[in-house]
């Protein structure tokens, strides 16, 4: 079971969180013309990376905040975690 450092609550076990997918995906702005390709990339197309991956988790049984987690998909090592509005350098 992973041990995730919620930037709001501290170290918590994985069973308090739910997974939310790739955090690098940006939703196209509302009311903006979007090509089929762009839209498909946003809704469907994901890379199944091996290695460092920035992903979303929600601390559903805690502060309910969505957070960003930088995790290695092969080793499960977690490098850094970020608040929803934090820019990831």
């Amino acid at each position, binding site marked *: *079971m*992973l*041990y995730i450092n919620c930037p709001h609550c501290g170290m918590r*076990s994985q069973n308090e969180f*739910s997974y*939310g997918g790739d955090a690098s995906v940006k*939703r*196209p702005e*509302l*009311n903006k013309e*979007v090509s089929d390709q762009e*839209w498909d990339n*946003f*809704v*469907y197309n994901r890379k199944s990376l091996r290695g460092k991956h920035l992903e*979303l988790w*929600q601390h*559903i049984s805690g502060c*309910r*905040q*969505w957070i960003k987690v930088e995790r290695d998909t092969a*080793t*499960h090592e*977690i490098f850094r975690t970020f608040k*929803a*509005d934090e820019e990831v350098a």
Partner: protein
Amino acid sequence: MTQAFRIENGGLINKDKKLSFKFNGKTYLGYEGDTLASALLANGVHLVGRSFKYHRPRGFFGAGVDEPYAVVQLFRNGETEPNIKATEQELFEGLEAKSVNCWPSVNFDIGAINNFLKIFLPAGFYYKTFMWPKSFWYRIYEPFIRKAAGLGVASTKHDKERYEHKYEYCDLLIAGSGPSGLAGAYAAAKNGAKVILAEDKPRFGGSLLTSDVNIGNQSGKDWADGIVAELKKMPNVVVKNRSQIFGYYDHNMLVMSEKVSDHLPSTKKYHPNKRLWYIRAKEVLISSGSIERPIVFGNNDTPGVMLSSAAKEYLKVYGVLVGRKPLVFTNNDSGYETAIEFKKHGVDPIVLDSRKNPESEIIDEAKNLGINIKNSYVVVAAQGYKKVKSADIASISEDKKQLGKIENIQCDCICVSGFWTPTVHLASQSGNKTKFKEEIDAFVPGQSKQNEITLGAANGVFSLEETLKTSFTAGSELSKKITENDNKIAIPNVVEKKSSQHDRFWCVPLPKGKNYKRFLDFQNDVAVSDVEIALREGYRSIEHVKRYTTLGMATDQGKTSNLNGLQLVSEIENKVVPAVGHTTFRPPYTPVSIGAIVGREVGKHSKPTRKSPMHSWHEKNDAVFVDAGVWLRPRYYKRGNENLFEASKREAKNVRTNVGVCDVTTLGKIDIKGPDAAELLNRVYTNAWLKLPVGKARYGVMLREDGIVMDDGTTTRISENHYHMTTTTAQAANVLSHLEYYLQLVWPELNVNVVSTTEQWAGAAIAGPKSRDLLQKLFPNSDVSNEGLPFMGYMEGDLFGVKARIYRISFSGELAYEVNVESDYGNFMWEKIIEVGEEFNIQPYGTEALSTLRIEMGHVAGSELDGRTIPFDNALEGLVSKKKDFIGKRSLQRSAFIAEDRQRIVGVVPLDKQTSIPEGSHLVKDDKAPLPNPKLGHISASCWSVEYDNPFSLAILKDGKNMIGQKLFAMSPLKNKVIPVEIVSSHYVDPKGERVRS
């Protein structure tokens, strides 16, 4: 019953307390502190089971967790448990156990015929034989295997025992209480670290219980006892025996199974049988020791052949002689230690040492005691069937290829030592890649992957002095990092005998003309010849060899067999062992009861049960409940002998003619506040929300980004910046997460707060033509007329002193209202509605009637919003705004979603107006068409229309828009039904929606 093999003095058992027990129906005596194995051996019982494949007689091979043979069926307190190792099961008064793997009895076993037909059972036997012909599988092979194989029988009864889970956090977790575990624990504890020390056996001390050493001028055991006593007194230390750490998972999470009650005749009241500990440790010290490995020789599975360390443990811990004429066969000094113990208790052993001329302090001691030692000698084969009677021995050449003349000598047990294998399982599970250590011919942990360190014998270090030194230091260093204390501890003096180098020798060659079985894996009956066959047939990867031969795949996970298997493969393949590599170690290290894994999450406790505040009223009024997500909801209220169909029909009809009340507390409720609340709603719902006036409700549909309908419900504007959203019962949690996702990540600029209020409000839907009359009586001071409270209107009211929210919304399609009060007043509200409603013939209705009402109205619910449909499919395209953008809108332009013949909701009526159509039935054009018959759609929901008194269903049908009036067939192969049907509008009742506005 005498315990003929118990020695007069010695052992750590309590001879003042005799215990009687039964094995295979016969009564024996043992002592408190015995294991089942030691007590049986004390009584001279060596035959405990039959092997898995050949049903050869099986005795005891080890004295603990590594035991491959002595697996028994245990009977305790009216329960039975299979797969119990006799070497681990502590004796208690009244214990009963039986052999497994034998039929009809351990002494006469029909399956043993396999042993004499063994030509038919080589490696890959199961793969080859039972593959063909297929039809033989059920009739012949499976019953045969079921009868002949298996390691006991699981109980079919409900397990009365209770199992608990515990979550724990510590600075340092220590696996194993041998010298390195104790030293590490002590040093860390002195630095104030929070320490958990786990020992799988009942007694602490590990190898110190049996080794002849001195620490700080005390015997090793006395030193261990002292340390444990001190640790137990410290508030920052948890010391646990009978507790096996069996799994090392991600981020330093380890799981431990504590046997709380297995050593007692029955579990104490309020105690669990086992407790599963989930331990998150900052640091882990693996001090799991090592397991002696066997030397492979002919008939090496005969009862009476056992590990030399086990023989020593039976003698020193349990005061039991495993034989009176022991033969010790060794390639290192450990065998001598066992021989010396025998000699000290008046038994004359013979030592066969494969080495030519070894010299060490231990060997000198053995020589001084006058022990008969034969160098460059090996056991070629054990003789005897149910027990060792003699051994064929021979000298062996220096290259270990040539045997000398074979002699037969009498003996009653053969104690084998092929050197030591570090227990690297936990380190390996943590992700640590093990490395091969030439000096000890075994794998040891490599670079640490997580915060773990392996010390002592588990790390291939067999010197006590070095073990203590490194472990005290590690305990200090690891704890210093965490607590920042640095209390120096004096490392005690150690007196131990030095050992000489072991012999790189593990398998005795077959003598000419002999074909003895030489076993590698004792539990799965895998012999040297099986591995040879596998390699001959082209299996190369050790993982494949393992699966083909089943080597190391038994319940003991090959604790005694893995390395010898690797040695064999490396020899045949002419590769070094590290090049062959070993199979992966996976948790659990030892078998774990399913009960312990499940814990308290059984039966009613497997998921939470949520009840509405009116639950007890429903119970008292004969409600029959149904699971709705995690909620319990009344399905119908039973009157007299009514069944579900009759009751729900009555309830639905009463709504259509009078008035009914339904508990809708379970609906998801989300409170939305903030100046941008309307903007949020406008973005997540498909329809327009910016102009909804205060005091008005609106029906809304929300989509996922892929255009699929996610949920529907009404949202009401309570005040300027305050909205009350309802969701379906099933999607309540998902919708909240969905809103939070957009507010926190996508549109953080919106000034809105959302919070779940599902449990804060109790809800009652009042529906039917007389609902307004009832409402007026409930709220005499409010104007609930069609003008005062129009359709989709909202007001607050006073319900006999209780503040209530009144929404004029309808799911049933009738004139209807929903009244909410704070949960604590729910029952009060409900009773008032029933009481006041009496004069209007009110009846409560359950979910079944609710479904009927919504189906015949063509209102969609979860069975239509099934994660595969878009608004058009549900005839909701009128709610999709063309002007504004919203979540999922762009996806609705996808070609499949705008196809001319897009699927759409329709109504379905059987032509005979009699036969109900099973939900899930497929709609087809031609019921006689060859399979696969093209499917045009499926029945999503069915009911008995109370309006028309005939069956009615909803369906999602291809080109549904143009299919009205068509005749199709509804086919349900599951229910074996073919029903001719007509397609009608989904709005079967009141298609213009006049009633809700009346």
